[in-house]
């Protein structure tokens, strides 16, 4: 978020300084512009008290567009293993003011496709739609006060049922099983679904 509103590359600066270089800017030269907000997408199930959800990422598509930044460590076909933290990605929305940043973050989360593990995306979107949250009335008891016992919506949209009716139950996405086996250590190298280098 700091990088987003100041237009800097802090990690790059750390490398420069570690290599003996000087900081490119002094504090007085740094100007903040606009507003940014970050949401962390986790492989966990808000409906079961945020228990971790493990599995293979059968479908993974990160959102993009103006005012949207995604930092993640996953690609389609990788497995979310039981050994680490369940964080999948950080999604940052930014804009001229808070309401623009919130709108971009919400749009980005709506467009973030993660199938194969349960995530907190719907919960995050419910938070972003909460009127007290939008008004910035935040305090340490906020989630306990307004989101205790939160459950995902039960109703299933008709387009989802029509897609289900059209989906072929015997279809197998080739390459997913192979990349799942070696995917954890090799990142995108084993995925076979349109991943190109030097394209």
């Amino acid at each position, binding site marked *: 978020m700091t990088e987003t509103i100041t237009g800097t590359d802090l990690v790059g600066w750390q490398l420069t300084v570690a290599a003996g270089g000087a900081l490119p800017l002094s504090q007085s030269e740094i100007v903040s512009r606009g507003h940014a907000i970050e949401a962390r997408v986790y492989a966990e199930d808000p409906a079961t008290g945020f228990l*971790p959800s493990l599995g293979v990422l059968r479908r993974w*598509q990160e959102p993009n567009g103006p005012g949207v930044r995604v930092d993640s460590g996953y690609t389609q076909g990788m497995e979310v293993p039981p050994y*680490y933290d369940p964080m999948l990605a950080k999604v940052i929305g930014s804009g001229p003011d808070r309401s623009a940043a919130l709108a971009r973050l919400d749009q980005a989360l709506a467009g973030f496709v993660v199938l194969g593990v*349960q995530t907190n995306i719907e919960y*995050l979107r419910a938070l972003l739609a909460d009127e007290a949250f939008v008004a910035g009335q935040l305090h340490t008891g906020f989630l306990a006060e307004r989101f205790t016992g939160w459950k995902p919506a039960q109703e299933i949209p008709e*387009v*989802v049922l*029509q897609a*289900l009716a059209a989906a072929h139950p015997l279809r197998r996405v080739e390459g997913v099983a192979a990349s799942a086996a070696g995917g954890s250590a090799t990142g995108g190298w084993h995925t076979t679904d349109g991943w190109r280098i030097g394209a």
Partner: protein
Amino acid sequence: MSTKWLCGEQELEVTRDPAVTTRTLPSGDIEVRHGDTVTVVAVAYGERGDILIGLDGRTWRFQPAQGRRAATRQKSGSLSAPMTGIVRAVHVVVGQSVEAYQPLAVMEAMKVMATLEAPFAGTVSAVHAAPGDRVEHGAVLVELEKA
């Protein structure tokens, strides 16, 4: 033609709407067209014929209904894994008497520990897990006979 599915606790019967046309995209996603409205729905295929669907940040897992009800429903008197993960400890052996709420086993996934407690007082009739085992969500770990 209709198909039957389970989604969580819901049982569904799904029939294609003749007013809707669909097209499968190269990604596997399905484009649903109804009049002038076109929606792209994310679709992927899981284990055992499951179909995974996503739209606007919400997701669903549909399981083919045939023969699945009995397999997914927890047997009474058995304790199943609340999540996929590693068994860290098993505190009981077959034949042991346990109190209600007594911890029977501990599981871990991604730094989160979950303790499985006896839902009632009884006797352990079977233990299906050992420390270090990797178990799937829903796998039966311990079976109990009610006292």
